[in-house]
């Protein structure tokens, strides 16, 4: 696969790993946050932790839209969709995520018409094909995904497809990074910036992190060599005492982002005054809702929403893990009450949540290391 395989070249990976070892000061402990859950997933999938020196700690950030979605939103979305003649359309990622009254798949088993879509455009197509049904698309995602929802809304309005609406849960990444940096117990050396979000918002929105927070940011791709090169670039900045925003993922990320995508978002959506993030609490201006001129296609305006609030159990330490204060396995519930099959906290919910990723790819390996170190 072009633009994939060459960035997984084992020889170059070895070279890059050597370069990282050479650059990392053994006297220092580096704490680098990869903001994006896709990066977390890639790091585990490719086993990159094994080839990084031990004094480079990768802290998994808040960039998993499934994980940070408050449970009550799922209940709200499903409560709208469970009326007869309605179709609940969502990405596969949402299907096993539990609401207080069960996951979408569990609702499907109870007779709710729940369908998996790959694209918001497919949900709209479903509405075209089923004129006697109302299709509710449960939209999630950061700025990468929001423009696709936006274009779909625009198409629905242009064609006047009345039996389609969007339950909008789109969130924005910058306020979440700010919330993490504002946390008093936070100590990070730099950020691996979310590459695919940046195809839309560009690299400028991170400049405050470098300028006012003094932390380097490298916008990164998702292949092993992308991530390793980004770490090289971060280490070089740290070595020379610099803090700036760099773009490692130039092959797809334009510095200024994607104007057409930003325009589509601006046309259809506006900032909510505040929105709840699972694990982080309420963050102001951190999510998008649908503009009034699209109100017919806004499920929240069209249907009564119960506004379910579900608080996570106090014993779940998702917030600390999200901020990198705790490692996933240091949470009291990790691997005991809270597992991928029975997630209690936000980060165990999605495969790219840091707890689930840690559990799936690392947990038992780490047990072996612990046994070995005891022996």
């Amino acid at each position: 696969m072009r633009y994939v395989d060459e960035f997984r070249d084992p020889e170059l990976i070895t070279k890059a790993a050597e370069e990282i070892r050479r650059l990392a000061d053994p006297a220092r402990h580096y704490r680098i946050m990869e903001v994006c859950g896709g990066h977390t997933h890639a790091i585990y999938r490719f086993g990159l932790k094994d080839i990084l020196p031990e004094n480079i700690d990768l802290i998994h950030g808040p960039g998993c839209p499934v994980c940070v979605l408050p449970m009550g939103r799922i209940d709200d979305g499903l409560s709208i969709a469970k009326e007869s003649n309605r179709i609940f359309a969502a990405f596969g990622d949402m299907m096993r995520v539990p609401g207080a009254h069960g996951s979408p798949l569990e609702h499907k088993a109870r007779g709710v018409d729940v369908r998996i879509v790959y694209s918001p455009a497919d949900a709209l197509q479903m509405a075209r094909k089923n004129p006697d049904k109302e299709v509710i698309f449960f939209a999630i995602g950061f700025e990468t995904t929001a423009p696709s929802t936006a274009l779909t809304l625009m198409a629905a309005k242009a064609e006047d497809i009345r039996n389609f609406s969007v339950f909008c849960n789109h969130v924005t990444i910058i306020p979440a990074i700010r919330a993490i940096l504002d946390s008093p117990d936070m100590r990070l050396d730099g950020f691996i910036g979310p590459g695919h979000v940046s195809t839309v918002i560009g690299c400028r929105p991170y400049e405050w992190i470098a300028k006012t927070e003094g932390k380097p940011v490298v916008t990164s791709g998702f292949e092993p060599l992308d991530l390793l090169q980004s770490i090289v670039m971060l280490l070089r900045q740290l070595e020379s005492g610099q803090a700036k925003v760099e773009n490692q993922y130039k092959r797809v990320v334009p510095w200024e982002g994607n104007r057409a995508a930003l325009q589509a978002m601006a046309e259809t959506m506006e900032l909510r005054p505040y929105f709840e993030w699972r694990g982080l609490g309420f963050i102001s201006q951190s999510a998008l809702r649908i503009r009034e001129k699209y109100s017919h296609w806004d499920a929240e305006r069209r249907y009564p929403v119960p506004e379910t609030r579900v608080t996570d159990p106090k014993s779940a330490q998702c917030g600390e893990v999200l901020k990198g204060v705790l490692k996933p396995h240091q949470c009291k519930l990790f691997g005991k009450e809270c597992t991928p099959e029975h997630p209690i906290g936000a980060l165990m919910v999605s495969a790219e949540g840091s707890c689930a990723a840690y559990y799936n790819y690392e947990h038992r390996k780490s047990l072996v290391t612990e046994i070995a170190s005891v022996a």
Partner: protein
Amino acid sequence: MEGLFAPFLLSGAEGQLADAARVEVNGTPIAFTTDSFVVRPLQFPGGSIGELAINGTVNDLAVSGARPAALAVTFVLEEGLSSSVLEAEVRAMRKALARAGVPIVAGDTKVVERGKADGMYITTAGIGTPIPGVQIDARNVRPGDKVLLSGPVGDHGITILLAREELDLEADLTSDTRPVLPLVEALAAEAAPGLVWMRDPTRGGVATALNELARDCGLCAEISEEEIMIRDEVRGACELLGLDPLHIANEGQFLAVVSPEYAQIALNALQLAEGGKDARMIGEICEQPASTVVVHTRYRGSRIVDMLVGDPLPRIC
């Protein structure tokens, strides 16, 4: 299966749940299995439900170390199913039976109301006689044993996913459904004394089958990603949908664990057999981490691969 059925209903089965049970009838050992087939759409590139129903049960017997002797079949038909669809399936089954060299000796048909059975469900059961010299038991797996895989993974599962047309993806890909019996026989002929365990990685894919092995033997199956063949189209679909090819279903492959001294002989036997040229040695059994499957990536890294719970769902995150 394990939580409810095994404790209540499977009192007669000894040891771990395998693809087929061993029972003795008047002192004669017999392998016995059954499986139900539910697939949408009924026909897909490279196969159909009827063919799956034959190959599936033939394969369950084969990987239990048995040569199929006879099958029984039950159809559950949805009212209104067109006779041409049914006839096509019956013909497909006849062809698959001929290919595997097994007869159907008993059968039954039920019709249910419209809207109740996705067209048709098929259940097959089969008995077989042990292939001489072959003893399949996960408890005999030892560290150092080698893991073999008969061919590329994921063809069937991805073909079905695309055939449903819900994801709007197209590729020139066909299901791998086939009887693995000839390959198992070829392997047994050369390496029976070293053959310890076999399984066909159907639902849940290679990852799930190996996790069952790791759990049953309490050891670690360490496999190398590089040695696992994946067709471009399967990889492409998996990359697009965020799926792990190791979790995708196969209907014409099997995994085998062979003791080290027989490993190369076994691999050669497979590769020389018809339909076995893509067989590979994909890894080996280790002590630690216990009851775990570890995949070594191409990049000197490693990851744990778990069983798949439920169906693979496409991701966008």
